């Protein structure tokens, strides 16, 4: 990996948002917002440049301090990383724009909301750092940065229920971090290295490795709200401010999934077993059914959306059993591996756009009506057609109807399921879609229903509605470059091309 071309972009992608966030602290509330918005645009621009650079040069690295691993830390920007960075930038810039108008619209109520900007930029730097990191301990540090900023953002609304939910979130996040750190300590103790690339080569199967894999997976499952550790997500995500809910659901939980994917594929391939893959897939399957059902049963819009996140994250866990070959299958003949893991990446992107749009729409409705009981959606179609359309489009993507990004992800996942012969996952995917259709159509039915009583209805700035609609459209537009994007992902020197040789069944149980 040392031989790859070097670039200074990875360092700037982490350093610049932190520098701007630090700078913004010196300003009062209005100045914080200006600096914060400019910083968001700047970071998004950098992400675009980074994407172009990787598309041209292939994977690039940045050796921090000039010390090569295992002594130092190496930042690695490969197609997978840069796709996640690009997604964060696109979704992030829309959420930033929404936040700018959203906080301006309710400026009189609270000046404390301006803390959103430094915290969001710190969070963004943490996410970029996580996607770029190639070091087990550095990943822990980025998780810490993300966790503390996410909790701070979640409690920013200052309401009592958000403080309770935030405390619960904090405790869950710390439990996850500690479990992860324990695993890292075991790995470092037994191998003397933290670099993912080196670990992938030298890690030997054994009790220590298996246990480290278990605690690390547990920690990351807590972080990404994988079933049955999803309990903290619905209250935390539903009680936060609208732009914050969007950030937490669209981006923050995806960070843990990204680490899980990388570690399972690049580091722990040797210790994975077929049964282990089936188990994590089962957790995902239960999450899909349970989360969708719970979403269907809720009466508050934001809780519906938050429970829907639990279900949509379940699909991400369901790609893992497909990546681990059953005993006796040769990697060369396993042509479903690529559809399976690219389905995961597409599910991440489709969900990020759709869910961000959904939460922003919920924020618009709360702004207009003052509450988010699902009855507040009545007659929405005539009052706010644009927001109704955003909810409809985002909902269609969540269900997975063609030609949305959600459809593409689920279709690829089904393709992986059929080609691999693990047919038992197929009914789960279909049932999940039906249940999702249930709550999305319930919301849309309400939006077209006549209003029962004349509730007070405050006008909402058009700009907010446009942003939510654009994000919803984004979940459709990502389908168009799909073929190129998948080719780009598979062309990676460090991840995609190597995945087939890495996840060959594992040393335990199969041989």
């Amino acid at each position: 990996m040392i031989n790859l071309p070097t670039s200074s972009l990875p360092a700037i992608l982490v350093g610049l948002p932190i520098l701007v966030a630090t700078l913004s602290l010196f300003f009062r509330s209005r100045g914080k917002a200006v600096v914060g918005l400019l910083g968001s645009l700047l970071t998004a621009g950098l992400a675009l440049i980074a994407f172009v650079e990787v598309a041209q040069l292939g994977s690039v690295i940045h050796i921090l301090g000039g010390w090569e691993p295992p002594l130092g830390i190496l930042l690695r920007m490969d197609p997978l990383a840069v796709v996640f960075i690009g997604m964060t930038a696109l979704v992030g810039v829309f959420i930033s724009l929404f936040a700018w108008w959203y906080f301006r619209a309710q400026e009189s109520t609270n000046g404390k909301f301006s803390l959103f900007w430094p915290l969001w930029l710190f969070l963004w730097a943490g996410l970029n750092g996580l996607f770029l990191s190639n070091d087990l301990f550095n990943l822990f540090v980025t998780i810490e940065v993300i966790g503390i900023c996410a909790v701070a953002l979640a409690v920013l609304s200052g309401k009592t229920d958000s403080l309770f939910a935030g405390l619960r979130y904090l405790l869950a996040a710390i439990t996850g971090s500690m479990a992860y750190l324990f695993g890292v300590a075991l790995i470092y103790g037994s191998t003397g290295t933290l670099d993912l690339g080196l670990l992938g080569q030298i890690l030997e199967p054994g009790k220590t490795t298996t246990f480290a894999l278990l605690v690390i997976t547990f920690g990351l499952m807590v972080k990404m709200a994988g079933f049955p550790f999803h309990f903290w997500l619905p209250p935390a995500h539903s009680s936060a401010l609208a732009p914050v809910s969007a950030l937490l659901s669209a981006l923050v939980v995806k960070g843990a999934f990204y680490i899980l994917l990388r570690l399972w594929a690049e580091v722990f391939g040797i210790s994975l077993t077929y049964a282990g893959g089936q188990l994590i897939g089962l957790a995902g399957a239960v999450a899909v059914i349970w989360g969708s059902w719970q979403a269907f049963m809720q009466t508050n819009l934001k809780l519906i959306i938050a429970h829907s996140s639990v279900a949509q994250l379940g699909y991400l866990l369901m790609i893992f059993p497909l990546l681990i070959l059953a005993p006796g299958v040769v990697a060369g003949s396993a042509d479903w591996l690529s559809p399976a893991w690219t389905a995961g990446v597409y599910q991440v992107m489709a969900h990020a756009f759709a869910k961000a749009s959904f939460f922003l729409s919920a924020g618009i409705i709360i702004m207009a009506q003052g509450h988010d009981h699902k009855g507040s959606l009545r007659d929405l179609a005539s009052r706010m057609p644009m927001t109704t359309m955003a909810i409809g489009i985002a909902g269609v993507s969540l269900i997975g109807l063609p030609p949305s990004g959600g459809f593409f992800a689920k279709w690829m996942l089904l393709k992986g399921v059929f080609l691999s012969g693990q047919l038992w996952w197929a009914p789960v995917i279909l049932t999940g879609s039906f249940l999702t259709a249930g709550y999305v159509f319930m919301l849309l039915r309400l939006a077209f229903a006549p209003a029962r009583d004349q509730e007070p209805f405050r006008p909402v700035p058009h700009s907010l509605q446009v942003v939510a609609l654009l994000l919803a459209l984004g979940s459709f537009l990502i389908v168009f470059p799909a073929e190129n994007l998948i080719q780009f992902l598979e062309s990676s020197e460090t991840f995609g091309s190597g995945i087939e040789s890495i996840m060959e069944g594992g040393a335990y149980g199969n041989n």
Partner: protein
Amino acid sequence: MSVLIDSLLAILAIYLALQCLLAQRLIQTVFIFFAFGLALALTWVRLGAIDVAITEAAIAAGFMGVLFLDALRDFSPAVSKKQQNLEAVRNPLPGNDTKRPILPRLALGLGLVLFLLISLEAVWNTPEGKGLTVVTGVMLPDSGVEHPVTAVLLNFRAYDTWLEIGVILMGLLAIFAAGGKEVYRKSGMTAEDPVLRQVILFFTPILFLFGAFLLYFGKSGPGGAFPAGVLWGAIGILLHLGGRPVLTVIPRWLLYLILTIGPGFFILLGFLLMTTGSTLFEYPPAYAGILILIVETMAAISIAAALTAIFTNLNQMSEEPDKIESNN
């Protein structure tokens, strides 16, 4: 002999941890937690990690203890009322805990014991030290410092350290976000307490000098920015308690300057070095020693300011009477 001391420490730490969890009253929990922190610090000393020991003692027993006591004082009116009610309920009904279903707790307990056993086995099976000690030793002459821990923290893995210094600042912002911001106000001097005054006069210079010593000594031995910052932070807390609120009387820009100078200077230096063609945090070997000392000093100032600010914000938050009302 050393085996005896080690086993004594191990038993003491576990015993204190259990006592801390099982204590009936919050005040007991807090004081046992102090003792636990000190036992842990002694354990670190026995393990040869003096810097971790100093930080553990200062943070776990010192700083956390102050925060706990402060929180306890805020909660005491609410808690004591609740505890009276609880005791009134408990006395006629001695088994109020057993009303909860026993099976989930049993399963949880069993699960935890199993987890402990399996993790003990995993730790036991970890192969003997393959760490990076040898590589660090070889590269040490190029790092600009003589102590391997400082070399790792400030040079080989400076990126991690920079982010961790940032995390302290983010922790302060999180406290602001949770509601500590509005009550950040200037508070006048409180009445002079002769004993407190003598304590401040006596301890401030000692703490300052000891912190500065640790900072400089970090070059060649255990020490560095984190322990130094914690000690300097203690000065801020002491002065605040003595009615000299250092952070609230200085101008706003200066406050944010000292809060952010640590991570801010670090990354600016990194970017500056990048413009000369090297990578982030790649010091020119000839200047590595002095640059590391400057970075550490800035970091220690920011850590001290952040710890003081965390304490003063939480402390002042509770002094706002309507705040207490709304918490109840």
